[in-house]
């Protein structure tokens, strides 16, 4: 490890130099277009401190004020002689004991951390990708097996499905699912988005699964059959576990693609990460910053997924 560092330190240095010069080049060119970077505006779109103002609904009189752990409990008696209590953050307290309050007067306020639009969008993207991956895997597994079936109809139907999906753009598929099937079958935009992505992923997964199954030596099936297993038993216990191990790297690639492709569902007004980014830009005009942040968030999601897959691969490698 140390040896390799010593040997090619100059190449590492060159990599760093190239990256640094790209960054400097970008910085110089953006400074020429007269763009004001406002990175400080970005964090509030992840989480923000939401202020809830507490007011008295009726004319009241303050009876007591108790403070504990920065939270103050205010007890008031309103015009109907009923007791009411309010909890506010201590440093926002606006009243004192025995003060007379009029309807709508402010007692104080509480602050809570709330997820901003970018975090919400990230959640939606994660949810859509996860659900579509699972459904896509199921569709792909089924179609992949149909593709290898001895039944001609199953084979032809699966080939037709795969060819249609792989031969048309995802964006067009999303429009068709949303505007055509969405109208005909009366499904909402979220379901339409997930359906379009699942059907799209399914076609690619089917081809991956087919290739995986075909890559298992014929002898494995023969050995399983010679022990008296029927085809489904041999598939479940012998072929699919081995095929799954081999297809893990291409499947991971497919699911990483799916996370990225899910950005296209923003065209049917699903507020995923991409659409959330666009909405934030309309209110901040921090175009450059937000798109960089959105890209970084996608990169984070995909890197985490590939780390997880790499870990699973290492777990499976025990029998190699």
């Amino acid at each position: 490890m140390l040896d390799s560092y010593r040997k090619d330190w100059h190449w590492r240095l060159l990599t760093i130099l190239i990256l640094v010069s790209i960054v400097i080049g970008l910085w110089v060119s953006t400074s020429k277009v007269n763009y004001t970077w406002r990175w400080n505006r970005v964090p509030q779109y992840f989480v923000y401190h939401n202020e809830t103002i507490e007011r008295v609904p009726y004319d009241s009189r303050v009876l007591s004020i108790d403070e504990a752990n920065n939270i103050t409990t205010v007890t008031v008696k309103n015009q109907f002689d009923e007791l009411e209590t309010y909890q506010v953050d201590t440093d926002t307290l606006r009243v004192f004991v025995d003060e007379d309050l009029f309807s709508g007067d402010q007692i104080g306020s509480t602050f809570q951390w709330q997820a901003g639009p970018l975090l919400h969008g990230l959640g939606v993207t994660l949810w859509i990708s996860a659900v579509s991956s699972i459904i896509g895997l199921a569709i792909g597994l089924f179609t992949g097996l149909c593709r290898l079936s001895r039944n001609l109809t199953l084979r032809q139907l699966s080939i037709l499905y795969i060819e249609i999906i792989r031969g048309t753009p995802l964006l067009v598929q999303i429009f068709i699912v949303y505007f055509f099937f969405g109208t005909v079958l009366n499904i909402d935009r979220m379901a339409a988005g997930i359906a379009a992505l699942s059907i799209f992923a399914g076609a690619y997964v089917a081809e991956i699964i087919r290739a995986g199954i075909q890559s298992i030596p014929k002898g494995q099936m023969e050995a399983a059959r010679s022990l008296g297993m029927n085809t489904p038993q041999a598939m479940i216990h012998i072929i699919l576990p081995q095929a799954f191990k081999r297809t893990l790297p291409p499947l991971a690639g497919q699911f990483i693609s799916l996370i990225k492709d899910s950005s296209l569902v923003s065209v049917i007004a699903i507020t995923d990460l991409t659409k959330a980014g666009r909405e934030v830009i309309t209110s901040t005009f921090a175009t450059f910053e937000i798109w960089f942040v959105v890209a970084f968030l996608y990169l984070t999601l995909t890197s985490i997924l590939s780390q997880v897959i790499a870990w699973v691969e290492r777990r499976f490698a025990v029998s190699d």
Partner: protein
Amino acid sequence: MIKTVDLIKTFAGRGQTIHAVDGVTTHIKAGEVVVVIGPSGSGKSTYLRCLNGLEELTSGHIHIDGVDLADRKTDLNKVRREVGMVFQQFNLFPHKTVLQNLVLAQTVVRRRKKSEAEQKARALLKKVGIPEKEMEYPIRLSGGQQQRVAIARALAMDPKVMLFDEPTSALDPEMVGEVLEVMKQLAREGMTMVVVTHEMGFAREVADRVIFMDHGKLVEEGTPEHFFTNPREERAKLFLKQVL
């Protein structure tokens, strides 16, 4: 035990049909050890694979314990339970440990309890001489050990017949002996065996009967003494001259 009548198996390839097995008729009795020999491409492996339905028959009949494999109503999976097979390339399940290799079919096909199946598997591993390897994955075993596991795996199903498809051909020479020893032990215990092999020594020592095949046809059959010392057919004489 196994009766084959006029067995024909053809493969269609590149505009010509190849008669891999061409009208073989023979009867293998229970407890008999039959060794099938012949030059490569003579159809002996295909013949063996027909015996447990891995190849579909073109015409003719195979009766195993009275059940006709050519009959469409026959449940091949049921027949295969009673016919163990050992392959040239071992075909162990690489994603399962040695013990799991032996246990799987017992629990899935024979519906045995796991504890019972494991007990049987351990006994068989002891019998083939590798009880200490049960937690290993097949890839960590030598070829000879893998083939012995494969034999144990087939035996775990309590088959009535064992088929061996060139079990020692893929092994390093020094490992052939250990596999043949296990097979000899099986033969001594009275197992019905059909063995396709190039091990003439094994044929001479263990076989009750030798079948010589060429071009898909059964050319000559007889006891080893007769076949190795005094074959009738010219083709058999030529073959023996080349291999001995």
